[in-house]
């Protein structure tokens, strides 16, 4: 199939449909409104169901119900909406139900603004939900990669029976790029759900025994055993899902660490610095949880500074410091509030930091 020019949000919605998404539930919030709009007319054509939820609390709850009943479920929101979904996300981890969630993030805190941001990094990687649980988080850096990630995310969510989060930003949602759309998989027929998901609540006539999807465990020993079971899954997921890309680390004097939109700007900044005779490299985490600590072992001894470069006031930097483990100085470049810096600004600031570290 050839390339088509699509707006990010519409391509993301189409990717979910092609992955066999049965249900989409959404509440309007900029900059991801094209997703519920697209789903409202395209998902029913593919045999799926669209509901405009009354809130993000309701949207994540609908997602939980549909997924517990065996449907493939996709939901999307932007930052303040993700805050409202935290209750549901923690519950879904506990109840072990697969759901794919896309955050087309914007600036915060509070209602913040509607321009792109990465200030939800701590929220998506640590969660605002209560209790011991983890959610795999992927940070694609362009529309094609985001499309491919959404398409794959359903299988990951189903394998681990856990939510999977995709952390795109408003820039990716709103821009247009040529994309190759994946092949349509088709929706699992309702009669086939029990064989694909024998744990799903489909009615006792349709599977062996009785299925109950639940979270409450009143006995501490039973709850502890459940959490340990969850963590066995997370350990396996951490090994399987860790992902990153490393660029031009050979003999680098400075190494940017950046994800999503910011990593693309860093690629340009590396070129600008190169023209100034400075060797710069980039580590781009693709999985934010699990965090690619091993990538930091590739940093050469020529490096004078590792610069966490983010669209926030410094959130990923804690993971960067943890991964660097004192081997190199760690610095920070960031803009927030919805401001996306130019690659020139990043290069200038990086050059100054490097000079101060020499």
């Amino acid at each position: 199939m050839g390339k088509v020019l699509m707006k990010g949000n519409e391509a993301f919605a189409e990717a979910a449909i092609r992955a066999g998404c049965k249900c989409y539930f959404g509440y309007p919030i900029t900059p991801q409104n094209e997703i519920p709009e697209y789903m409202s007319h395209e998902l029913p054509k593919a045999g799926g169901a669209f509901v405009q939820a009354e809130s993000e609390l309701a949207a994540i709850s609908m997602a939980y119900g549909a997924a517990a009943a065996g449907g493939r479920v996709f939901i999307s929101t932007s930052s303040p909406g993700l805050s409202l979904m935290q209750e549901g996300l923690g519950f879904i981890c506990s109840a072990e139900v697969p759901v794919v969630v896309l955050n087309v993030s914007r600036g915060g805190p509070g209602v913040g603004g509607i321009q792109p941001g990465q200030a939800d990094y701590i929220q998506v990687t640590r969660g605002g939900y209560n209790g011991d649980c983890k959610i795999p988080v992927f940070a694609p850096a362009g529309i094609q990669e985001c499309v491919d990630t959404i398409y794959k995310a359903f299988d990951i969510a189903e394998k681990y029976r856990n939510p999977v989060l995709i952390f795109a930003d408003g820039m990716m949602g709103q821009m247009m790029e040529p994309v190759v759309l994946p092949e349509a998989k088709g929706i699992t027929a309702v009669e086939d759900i029990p064989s694909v998901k024998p744990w799903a609540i489909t009615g006792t006539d349709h599977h062996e025994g009785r299925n109950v999807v639940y979270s409450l465990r009143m006995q501490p020993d039973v709850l502890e055993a459940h959490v340990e079971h969850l963590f066995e899954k997370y350990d396996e997921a951490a090994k399987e899902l860790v992902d990153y890309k490393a660029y031009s680390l050979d003999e680098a004097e400075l190494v940017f660490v950046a994800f999503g939109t910011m990593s693309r700007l860093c690629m340009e900044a590396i070129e600008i610095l190169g023209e100034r005779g400075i060797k710069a490299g980039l580590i781009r985490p693709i999985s934010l949880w699990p965090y690619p600590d091993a990538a930091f072992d590739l940093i050469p001894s020529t490096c004078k500074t590792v610069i966490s470069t983010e669209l926030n006031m410094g959130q990923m930097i804690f993971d960067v410091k943890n991964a660097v483990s004192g081997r190199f100085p760690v610095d920070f470049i960031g803009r927030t509030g919805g401001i996306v810096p130019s690659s020139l600004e990043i290069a200038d600031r990086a050059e100054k930091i490097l000079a101060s570290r020499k």
Partner: protein
Amino acid sequence: MKTVFEPTKGMTPADTSYCPGCTHGIAHRLIMEVLDERGLLGNTIGVVPIGCSINAHHFMNIDMCESTHGRAPAIATGIRRVHPDKVVFTYQGDGDLASIGAGEIVHAAHRGEKFSTFFINNAIYGMTGGQMAPTTLIGQKATTCVSGRTVEQAGMPLRMCEILSQIDCCVYAERVMLTTPANIRKAKKAINRALDVQLQGLGFGFVEFLSSCPTNWGLAPKDALKYVEEKMSAYYPVGVFKKPEGID
């Protein structure tokens, strides 16, 4: 030998965990009996709330899921989209439905969701130990209004049947009480009506059960039933608020 009575297959053999005199058990059994009599147990998916009856899935012998507090109607909305041909219901207490989940129930009704909600109104938060609910009566004592609820402090109790029956796509709303055998028979009839409405795809159906909570009301079980009949039903009149034509 002719069988004149046998326990419904809709209830598991487990003993219920409810306090003596609590009417959750009666409501469970009635719903399961109706599903059993109609041959629907194996094609039904139920959603239990946060509240004493989160344990209902240990007793109701069907596929079920637990809910986040108050969100059962949204959860059932999701289930319904995957299984348009099955019976779906939520079972919710008054803290769950009328307080934290007031938004979800109103919007499920407003969308005309084709599932049924069974609402257990015991005018108190049972599971957390007897705090005031939105449905607590004026003058009724609770641990967060020890001298009795007042209008000044907490407004007037919410009447959910009256509220929901104003919503066009809530096509059926009835309030019953779980007190005497005659009233319990009426409650069973209401459950049947809710299922008729659902199976015929007519819209959202709602049954409110005036229920007792002897433990948190500080009353003996018999006195608690008397309280339902005399005090609760005076403020919450029983009867059909709305019923589609053709549903008997």
